């Protein structure tokens, strides 16, 4: 009997060794020809200005991530329930096995409905994008 986690650890080891050995082979094969301008980041031929880490981006990415945290923790709670559900119905009956989880999911669905109504899952356009918007009649 081989412990499952030893086997998983072994694959983790192999999965790290494979990329490392490819890097090693590549470092032996590849040339290095440093040239002026080669290291500039690619911006479709324009000379890049400023750092990419100070650009502004849509707040919506943050809202969606917040919402995700809630639902992700919720799935963690659903996991053990889903595993024992079949047996639990046999032992304590359908109502006691199902209703607590329905209430739990219900609360979250209400939360989602609230977020939906208040536009948290609506993609916010910047005023600039809105002013450039073209409505086409097709």
């Amino acid at each position, binding site marked *: 009997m*081989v*412990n*499952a*986690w*030893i*086997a*998983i650890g*072994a*694959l*983790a*080891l*192999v*999965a*790290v060794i*494979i*990329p*490392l050995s*490819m*890097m090693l082979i*590549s*470092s032996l*094969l*590849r*040339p290095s*020809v440093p040239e002026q301008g080669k*290291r*500039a*980041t*690619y*911006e*479709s031929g324009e000379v*890049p200005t400023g750092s*990419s*880490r100070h*650009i502004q981006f849509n707040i*919506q*990415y943050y809202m*969606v*991530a917040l919402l*995700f945290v809630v*639902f*992700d923790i919720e*799935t963690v709670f*659903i*996991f053990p329930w*889903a*595993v*024992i*559900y*079949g047996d639990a*119905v046999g032992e304590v009956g359908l109502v006691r*096995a*199902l209703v607590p*989880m329905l209430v739990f*999911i219900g609360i979250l*669905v209400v939360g*989602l409905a609230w977020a*939906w109504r208040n536009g948290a*899952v609506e*993609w916010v356009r910047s005023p600039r994008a809105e002013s450039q918007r073209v409505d086409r009649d097709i």
Partner: protein
Amino acid sequence: MTLPEAIAGVLPIGGVAGEIVAAVIGAAIIGTIMLTNTAVAGPWAKRKITAAFTDRIAVNRVGPFGLLIIVADAVRLLSKELIVPEGVDRPAWDLAPMVLASSALLGFAVIPMGSIFGVNMQLADPETGLAFVFAIASVASLGLVMAGYASNNKYSFLGGLRAVAQNLAYEIPLVLTGLSVVIFAGTLQTSEIVAAQSETLVSLGGLAIPSWFAFVNPFAFVLFVLANLAEVGRNPFDIPEAPTEIVAGYQTEYSSVYFVLIYLGEFVHIFLGGAIIATIFLGGPAGPVLPGFIWFLIKIWAVFLFTQWARSAVPRVRIDQLIEIGWKGMLVLAFANLVLTAVIVGVIA
């Protein structure tokens, strides 16, 4: 009996040392199998499939059916110069390709690949198998963020952000739909989930339809396949790369071996998605006549073909549509599916 146990039975070493050696040999075999699949898929099959969809001829000069393009491409890509752009965030920029490639490979640890020559090709079978594979499959998002942030490129940054928004939106429907299968099977152990699908569902004129969860709950199957397309970032959900909008997204600044690793990670991830679909919806390695392992390969290649088909045939969605489909459509449907499954299973049980 899992693959390392079969190897440990043959090895002359006993005890923990024997276990570890057997586990490493088994892991090397699984790793090699998946690398071979990816090597065939990336440089050769993908081009052939795309060419067939667009009515062109793809690689056909190097070797029989152009198969030697795999060797040629490997040598070509590995011997390219590695250009490190100005201002990259060094450890993160180097780690991102490794995270992508390693995490995708690690996911195969718990996948039951069926048996061939009397050896069961499953590496490990822990009780939490399905939770493990979902967890490992989503580590790839971390690699995408690292690549996007560290590259010091505005396209990469946008690609990284889009990758997060997409993976967040589709992770929950994916896991919830997977859980609706767990309700049927009553376990997270992958071999048990496969065993739960081995009974006959109905007999149609002497042809026995097995109780694969794709047949038991086709609605969940469709949801899962769609969410999986988003998870591996293929059309219609390929906005993190979106070559016509943001160059190549998070992989814009990667060249040489790093590009190979990112590409490899993506393809292994597609196969991992296929392996999860095969395990929880298509009866794992089950199938008539041929050995189980061959059936497993057929199933993951079928899913690969499907992703390439979608890539050739379906237009890309916009980011606002993506958020709308994910949070308003799929999430609600996934909840409905979960609750309905629970009610039906509860009433039958």
